[in-house]
């Protein structure tokens, strides 16, 4: 049973304007880790908006968990390239934000605040931010802010995590550290992940399945399953099969550029 399913989905932002994405069909299993790659402006973020119900499709159908998506989903976790932490809140308060909005936490927050804060502290510790719970965002480095942002996306235990180029602004070393962090979080307590990225190594290292999109209007060009054994260690990125996957995807992107 597919957890997320697109059936010939097209979307034009304004009626009558050209499609941003066209005839996109894909299906994502529960707890599958998929990655969307493609040139800038090809509609990757648009796919995110459709999955989360922030935009209705102009044509076609989007199903999540067996039901057609009719409006914003109620408890998806999202993280973007900018951490979007609220500057007047500490790390802990930022991570607690979904608990103030998502049920059943929202209505029990008063009674169970201590318990929920304990969960938040545990998660903050798991991503390596122990000791920074009471710091404000400007006191954290870019990588740390991104860790906090991912905590905020996961604290309410969503079944669906949407990551839109979350590591795009980080240096190469920090980026790899964060790959491993996401990998560990996902491996321990699986959830469905849609990761948008420009970085083919990132896509191959993390995902079960990589989708390559064409430039505007975005279509799915290639669906590639990554059969590297899990758990994957960073060392895998230096192996022959890994390089072969990256190379193959790279060629597809190359074709887009030329055409």
């Amino acid at each position, binding site marked *: 049973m597919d957890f997320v399913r697109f059936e010939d989905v097209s979307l034009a932002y304004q009626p009558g304007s050209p499609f941003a994405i066209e005839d996109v069909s894909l299906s994502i299993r529960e707890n599958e880790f998929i990655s969307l790659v493609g040139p800038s402006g090809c509609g990757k973020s648009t796919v995110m908006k459709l999955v*989360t119900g922030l935009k209705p499709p102009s044509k076609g159908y989007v199903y999540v968990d067996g039901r057609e998506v009719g409006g*914003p989903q109620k408890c998806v976790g*999202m993280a973007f390239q*900018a951490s979007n932490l609220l500057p*007047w809140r500490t790390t802990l308060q930022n991570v607690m934000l979904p608990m103030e*909005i*998502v*049920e059943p936490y929202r209505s029990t927050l008063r009674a169970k605040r201590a318990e929920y804060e304990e969960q938040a502290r545990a998660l903050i510790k798991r991503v390596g931010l122990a000791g920074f719970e009471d710091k*404000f965002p400007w006191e954290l480095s870019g990588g740390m802010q991104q860790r906090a942002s991912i905590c905020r996306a996961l604290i309410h235990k969503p079944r669906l995590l949407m990551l839109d180029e979350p590591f795009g602004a980080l240096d190469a070393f920090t980026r790899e550290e964060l790959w491993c962090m996401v990998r560990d979080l996902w491996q321990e307590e699986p959830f469905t992940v849609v990761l948008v990225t420009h970085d083919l190594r990132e896509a191959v290292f993390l995902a079960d399945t990589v989708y390559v999109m064409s430039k505007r209007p975005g279509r799915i060009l290639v669906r590639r399953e990554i059969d590297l054994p899990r758990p994957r260690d960073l060392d895998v990125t230096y192996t022959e099969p890994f390089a072969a996957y990256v190379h193959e995807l790279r060629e597809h992107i190359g074709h887009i550029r030329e055409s």
Partner: protein
Amino acid sequence: MLSQNTLIRLAPWLVVLFFGLLWEGIVVAFDVPAFLFPSVSSVWHSTVMHWDPIMMHATQTFLTTLAGFAIAVVFGLVVGAAVGSSPIIYKAFYPLLVGFNSIPKVAFVPVLVVWFGIGTIPAILTAFLISFFPVVVNVATGLATLEPEMEDVLRSLGASRLDILKKVGLPRAMPYFFASLKVAITLAFVGSVISETVASNLGIGYLMMAASSSMDMALVFAGLIVIGIMGVAMYELFALVERKLTGWAHRNPNGAM
């Protein structure tokens, strides 16, 4: 040697002292007649002599200003929140607000006098009319600068518009709001004094009007200086509140909430 910090703290007083001495020096050196331009010492003399009435009128102006300012803050918050959180309301009301703000508020005083008689009420309303605009603009700007991605994060958690306003919009607008209070309070003084000058028998504005018609320029200047002092004091007060409550906006770890 004075430390840098002491110097910064003393600088404004030194500037005031400098201009006070310059003023006194020019008046004395050129022997300017007091009914044209009184010296600092004669203004001071007049202030001491008329201390009680000055205080009485100053209190009146102060309370009038505060009342008008308070209405402006409430009104500004509500209208700013409406204008800032809905693009349609923004589009619909902005030209009207800008147009209204371009009208000199002194033009309203005669209308207000017809409606409410002379005295405190027109002064309060003039203070209100002149000072709400910066509050509206700043609150609206603060709300409208919400990042679209943050909105996506919240909406995909199931947040309502009200949730988004409470959790992100209003806190984000707070630095803008407090910045506008500093401007609004000084404008409120302008409004109440204008109205008192034209249509009141109470307040510093009235006192100055009365003094000038009896050629008592020293007292007129005393009134001007009292208004200036009240304005600076209130400005500083709101600057302090701003630093205390919205330190995060200035990335100042000490002033954070």
